[in-house]
């Protein structure tokens, strides 16, 4: 009953004209960003973050959240029509979605992606409402040692579950923590790594860092490519899947929703992992697995449902524990801090309008996306035809002005460009940006909770092992850390054995 009252309150906030307008703007921009391969939701959120400064915190988060889950809807359009994922969580949709389009079934593919996303998004929100409140109540028992352990566990999980090399992901996470130390130390009042530059006393800004690492570097990687994608020439019709399509896809939608939601809660899980695992699951349990990769509708329905459900799940650790579980949540975390809000268990108590307003706006946003997406597909197809050589200067311009507008300072623009070049080089050398961003965002919290814990324990590190929740968190983190090294050594041994076998054969 209390949940219903809270939801009603949330809808009274979400349906306010300003919030409704910016929810619409957010989901529309999110879909656009999802459709365009050149920029992802994180880049878009970082570019639009300065624009939210003059908004109320609730409106700002509603718009930024809309960009995040809206991009999941948009990403499937490019995957199905161009065989290029609009954003990372739609990679798997290319496998069967594009095949369906080649068979003249682009309409049902787009339709099942949209409907599956809507159903999964709604189910994910139900899960968010049911789990968030008890989680927030549980989190009130957390002290500095528990938070420290949770942050260490979160960072370890993110690096453990990274797509590339675990070793490189750990390095990036640690470097992110180092970057977060730049500027004035809040406790001792000393400047750290500021190179005598007054502009660095406030530290490296989140927005220039994010724009550089994800906006500028993405553009640089795209402009060096020699080929440009071509849209499949097919007639777009019959967006409503047939009864037979629904019968085939219903199980995939249900499983994808459940899998996506729980993976979204997990730090490092999120939309990308949930879409991949959903595809793997559907293929494994299918009666005819050889249909996958040749236009199986479950191959579109499952992953697209999973990635939307994951967006709802990923809000739980952010809103209840104050710990972002992925890079997009890290951007929202930064936005909340910029607006003077402290994400965590007290957010529900101190700012119920933000908590319930955002949740209700996600319901509203999902409805808007379903209504908008299918009729607007012809427009998205036209947008896809805009040559990248026209698009990339505009993206760069938005990045430059966005960075400049923070403090009317060219220094922030230079910082963004430096990190843009670094981000480009990191990608070339196969270092992922997400662990760095998470380390950067969580670094100050990590340091603060570490110091507070040591003050409580009068300098003894045993406090992290005598408090049960902290001990469990750190033990899991340690196990994951050790197992990742065992995994790396195992891989090297296998590689060496293969080389020796090849050498012997020659």
């Amino acid at each position: 009953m209390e949940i219903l009252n809270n939801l009603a309150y949330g809808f009274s906030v979400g349906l306010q004209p300003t919030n409704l307008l910016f929810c619409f703007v957010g989901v529309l921009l999110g879909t656009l960003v999802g459709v365009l391969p050149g920029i992802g939701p994180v880049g878009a959120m970082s570019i639009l973050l300065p624009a939210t400064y003059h908004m109320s915190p609730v409106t700002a988060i509603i718009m930024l959240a809309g960009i995040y889950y809206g991009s999941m809807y948009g990403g499937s359009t490019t995957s199905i029509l161009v065989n290029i994922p609009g954003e990372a969580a739609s990679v798997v949709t290319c496998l069967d979605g594009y095949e369906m389009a080649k068979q003249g079934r682009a309409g049902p593919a787009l339709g099942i992606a949209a409907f599956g996303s809507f159903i999964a998004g709604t189910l994910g929100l139900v899960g968010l409402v049911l789990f968030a409140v008890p989680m927030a109540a549980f989190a009130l028992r957390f002290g500095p040692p528990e938070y420290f352990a949770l942050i260490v566990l979160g960072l370890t999980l993110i690096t453990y579950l990274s797509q590339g090399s675990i070793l490189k992901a750990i390095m990036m996470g640690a470097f992110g923590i180092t970057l977060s130390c730049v500027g004035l130390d809040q406790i001792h009042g000393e400047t750290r790594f500021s190179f005598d530059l007054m502009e660095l006393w406030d530290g490296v800004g989140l927005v220039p860092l994010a724009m550089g690492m994800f906006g500028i570097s993405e553009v640089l990687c795209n402009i060096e490519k020699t080929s440009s994608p071509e849209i499949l020439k097919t007639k777009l019709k019959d967006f409503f899947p047939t009864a037979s399509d629904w019968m085939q896809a219903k199980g995939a939608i249900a499983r994808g929703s459940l899998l996506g939601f729980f993976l979204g809660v997990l730090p490092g899980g999120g939309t990308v992992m949930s879409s991949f695992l959903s595809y793997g699951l559907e293929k494994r349990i299918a009666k005819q697995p050889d249909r996958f990769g040749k236009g199986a509708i479950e191959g579109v329905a499952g992953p697209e449902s999973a990635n939307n459900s994951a967006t709802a799940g990923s809000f739980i650790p952010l809103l209840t524990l104050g710990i972002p579980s992925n890079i997009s949540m890290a951007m929202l975390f930064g936005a909340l801090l910029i607006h003077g809000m402290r994400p965590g268990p007290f957010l529900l108590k101190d700012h119920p309008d933000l908590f319930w307003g955002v949740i209700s706006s996600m319901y509203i946003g999902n409805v808007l996306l379903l209504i908008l997406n299918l009729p607007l597909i012809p427009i998205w197809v036209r947008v896809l035809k805009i040559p990248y050589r026209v698009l990339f200067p505009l993206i760069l311009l938005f990045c430059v002005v966005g960075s400049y507008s923070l403090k009317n300072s060219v220094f922030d623009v230079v910082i963004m460009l430096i990190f843009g070049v670094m981000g480009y080089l990191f990608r070339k050398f196969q270092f992922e940006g997400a662990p760095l961003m998470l380390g950067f965002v969580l670094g100050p919290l990590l340091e603060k909770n570490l110091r507070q814990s040591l003050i409580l324990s009068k300098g003894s590190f045993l406090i992290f092992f005598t408090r049960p929740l902290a001990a469990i968190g750190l033990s899991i983190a340690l196990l994951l850390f050790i197992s990742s090294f065992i995994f790396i050594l195992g891989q090297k041994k296998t590689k060496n054995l293969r080389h020796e076998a090849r050498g012997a054969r020659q």
Partner: protein
Amino acid sequence: MAQRMVKNSADLLSGLFWTGVSLFVTVESFRLGIGTGHNPGPGFVPLCSAVIFGVLGFVLIVTNIQKKRWERRIADLWKHVEWKKVVWVVLSLFLYAFLFSKIGYLLATAGVMTFLLRITRRSKMWIPEIAGALMIALASYFLFGVLMGIQLPKGLLDL
């Protein structure tokens, strides 16, 4: 056949970079002060993180030196891609940042947009790019400066 020990592995260079950065951060952390267990100093957390990526960077160096064959060379990273475009774009953006407050938003934006639109086209005519750049500069000035109220640098045109 003896393997040529060509030291241009991408991971080897990465390892050297991270080890170098780690050494710098470590030295700075000690200068800032590590503090005590009861009262960690400002250099404590940077030192811990520097040790992590420094050790792992060293692991990258050692594992690559031990390799009998180099799987990825640095030059291969830029094979079959138009890397010169990237260099030109980066240089033009730094120039844009420099000129931004000196000559003003409108002129700097028109200039750099002309260059960026031009860089991916191979034709003798400059007019489409100049026209496009002017449109972008004016439209963006209206959007950012007028509608959003961002204080863009006035520069030479005093606009």
